């Protein structure tokens, strides 16, 4: 983890403050600007408070940086309740002086305004809280409430400006939240004077599924991802999923792990899969895909490695029962905490949400191997391109964690595999094909290694049987006439088909890469433009203020000289001659 983090520090430029929020540190290339204020804006319910809270809690618990939460909306109890739903003990953290929470109530119905004032009350309370716990981080959630509670916008603007520069002078890293405005980032135009980093959160419904999105609008002096990144709020807080595959620096795997079927290991150069590689197992109904996956998982658990098995088709009970019928009892592994079985229901969530679920499971359970059975059930959730990109990101996730992943793919019965079904075979390191074979009136199953990168693998079709003690690979498949011709031809065909699709995939990939680059470029241009506009606005405001001040000074001089003159005249009149 820490090595992973260190890599995130920028090579040059400003100092950054890690948020500890999953994914956010990656897309912001190392966290928020240290000692500065970051503006987090978005509509109600988009997750501003959750993000701000997690920034403080992680700061306090993971980076030993105590934090002050100034809550304009929720009371301390409400915040504690919300935090508890994410497993955070807010009162406990406050008791240990890791956090301080101050609910600042601004109720317009109770307040009348009469003459000049400032926000010294807020300053004094904030300063006291900072001092009391030695805070390094501060959250103001949300400053929009100040504007709805107090009427004098000019005073508020000036005071917020003063507040932000005061925080800066104290070297505090702050997160300021504000409500999204019509056609601008915040209702009150706060983005004009919190200029270092601006993050926009959004909550949208797409294809009847709701999706949360995060975007770094601006980050002065730093590179940052310009895309909209989907994020989830769950029981472990907020996680942002970086788009892939930006990092191509996965270590090439060298270690090998058994497949769980000894004779399959033999077919794969005698040693099985590479650790951290991706394996596609495709075949028709009942060809034994899940059984193969169960062997793989069982072998991992027997080595004492944690395994994650995600079924997109059956309940976990069904999976266990089916596996028991071929003599694989997974229950002891579940009991020992080595195996996590879970059922994903493709229909109920978007692709992004599923990906995030998997991502979170990987993080919390930390498996060494994982299975998605079958991955084809997700196809209906998006276009080919979207599904393809989901698989790319999935593979990116497993590779960066050195997880060996097996994905099964359902293909229609006896034709050659329908290669367009997932559009992913080219991304997989190893591709196993399971087939029903008909010969001499006998039905057999056949297994064939279509490809396996980085190893000398068998090119033969092997028959196998499913017994009540598991999969058994038999000898080389012999065609109807006792010759290998039938299988040889099939092999040849399959191989040619595979090569053709792979070429096609690569071409498509290049095309989409180009498109993606173009989009990234455009997004960057747009972001630079909006950054420039913000800066221009704030400069203009500054200039205007300076002019005003200049005028006032000039006026003051005139008045003063008038006053002096009067004194002199009076003095002359009264003084002794």
């Amino acid at each position, binding site marked *: 983890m820490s090595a992973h983090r260190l890599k995130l520090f920028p090579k040059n430029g400003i100092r950054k403050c890690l948020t500890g929020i999953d994914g956010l540190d990656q897309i912001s290339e190392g966290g928020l600007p240290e000692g500065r204020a970051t503006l987090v804006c978005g509509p109600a319910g988009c997750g501003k408070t959750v993000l701000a809270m997690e920034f403080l809690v992680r700061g306090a618990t993971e980076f030993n940086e105590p934090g002050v939460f100034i809550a304009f909306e929720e009371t301390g109890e409400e915040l504690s309740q919300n935090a508890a739903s994410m497993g955070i003990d807010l009162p406990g953290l406050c008791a240990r002086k890791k956090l301080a929470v*101050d609910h*600042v*109530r*601004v109720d317009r119905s*109770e*307040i*009348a*305004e*009469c*003459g*000049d*004032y*400032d*926000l*010294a*009350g*807020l300053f*004094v*309370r904030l*300063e*006291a809280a900072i001092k009391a716990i030695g805070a390094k981080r501060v959250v103001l959630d949300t400053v929009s409430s*100040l504007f709805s*509670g*107090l009427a004098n916008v000019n005073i508020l603007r000036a005071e917020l400006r003063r507040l932000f520069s005061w925080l800066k002078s104290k070297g505090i890293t702050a997160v300021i939240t504000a409500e999204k405005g019509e056609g601008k980032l915040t209702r009150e135009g706060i983005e004009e004077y919190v200029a270092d980093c601006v993050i926009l959160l959004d909550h949208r419904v797409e294809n009847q599924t709701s999706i949360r999105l995060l975007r770094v609008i601006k980050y002065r002096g730093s590179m940052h991802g310009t895309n909209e990144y989907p994020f989830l709020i769950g029981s472990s807080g907020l996680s942002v999923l970086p788009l892939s595959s930006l990092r191509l620096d996965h270590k090439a795997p060298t270690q090998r792990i058994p497949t769980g079927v000894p004779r399959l290991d033999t077919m794969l150069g005698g040693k099985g899969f590479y650790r951290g590689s991706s394996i596609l197992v495709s075949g028709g109904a009942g060809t034994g895909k899940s059984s193969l996956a169960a062997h793989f998982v069982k072998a991992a658990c027997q080595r004492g490695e944690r395994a994650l098995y995600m079924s997109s088709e059956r309940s976990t009970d069904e999976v266990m029962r089916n596996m028991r019928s071929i003599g694989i009892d997974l229950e002891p592994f579940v009991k020992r905490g080595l195996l996590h079985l879970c059922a994903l229901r493709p229909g109920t969530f978007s692709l992004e949400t599923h990906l995030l679920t998997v991502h979170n499971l990987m993080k919390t359970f930390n498996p060494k191997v994982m299975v998605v059975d079958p991955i084809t059930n997700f196809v209906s959730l998006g276009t080919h391109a979207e599904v393809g990109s989901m698989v790319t990101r999935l593979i990116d996730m497993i590779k960066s964690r050195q997880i060996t992943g097996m994905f099964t793919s359902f293909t229609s019965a006896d034709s050659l595999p329908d290669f367009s079904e997932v559009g992913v075979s080219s991304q997989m390191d190893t591709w196993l094909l399971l087939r029903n074979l008909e010969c001499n009136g006998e039905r057999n199953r056949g297994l064939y290694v279509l490809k396996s990168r980085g190893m000398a693998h068998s090119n033969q079709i092997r028959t196998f049987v499913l017994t009540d003690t598991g999969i058994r690979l038999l000898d080389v498949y012999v065609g109807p006439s006792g010759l290998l011709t039938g299988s040889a031809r099939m092999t040849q065909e399959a191989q040619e088909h595979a090569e053709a699709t792979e070429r096609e995939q690569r071409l498509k990939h290049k095309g989409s890469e180009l498109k993606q680059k173009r989009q990234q470029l455009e997004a960057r241009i747009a972001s630079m433009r909006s950054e420039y506009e913000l800066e221009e606005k704030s400069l203009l405001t500054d200039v205007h203020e300076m002019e005003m001040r200049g005028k006032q000074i000039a006026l003051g001089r005139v008045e003063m000289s008038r006053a002096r003159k009067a004194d002199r005249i009076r003095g002359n009149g009264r003084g002794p001659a």
Partner: protein
Amino acid sequence: MIPQNRKSKSTTATRKSNGEEYVLRLYVTGATSRSRRAILNINAICGEHLEGKYNLEIVDILQNPALAREAQIVAAPTLIKLLPLPLRRIIGDLSDTERVLAGLDLKSEPRV
């Protein structure tokens, strides 16, 4: 919410009452000119309109931040009318007497 009988060196009470119908508290920040203006203004208003029936306490929040928190002070100066109910807050230097009187429910809102 606001302790009624709390006394500290940062608060000074002006007692000119026997009935004490009006309990007021003015939160200021040290001896800035704005604070001084607010104090002068409220003293004048009380002297003129509440003679003999008020208790005014002045709190310096710079010396006692905890009191600012307890009383939910955001702006300074803030005048709080604790009694009679309902509780009212008037923020600012109290330079507009009519508005202050309206805020204290002593007069209806001035027409502008």
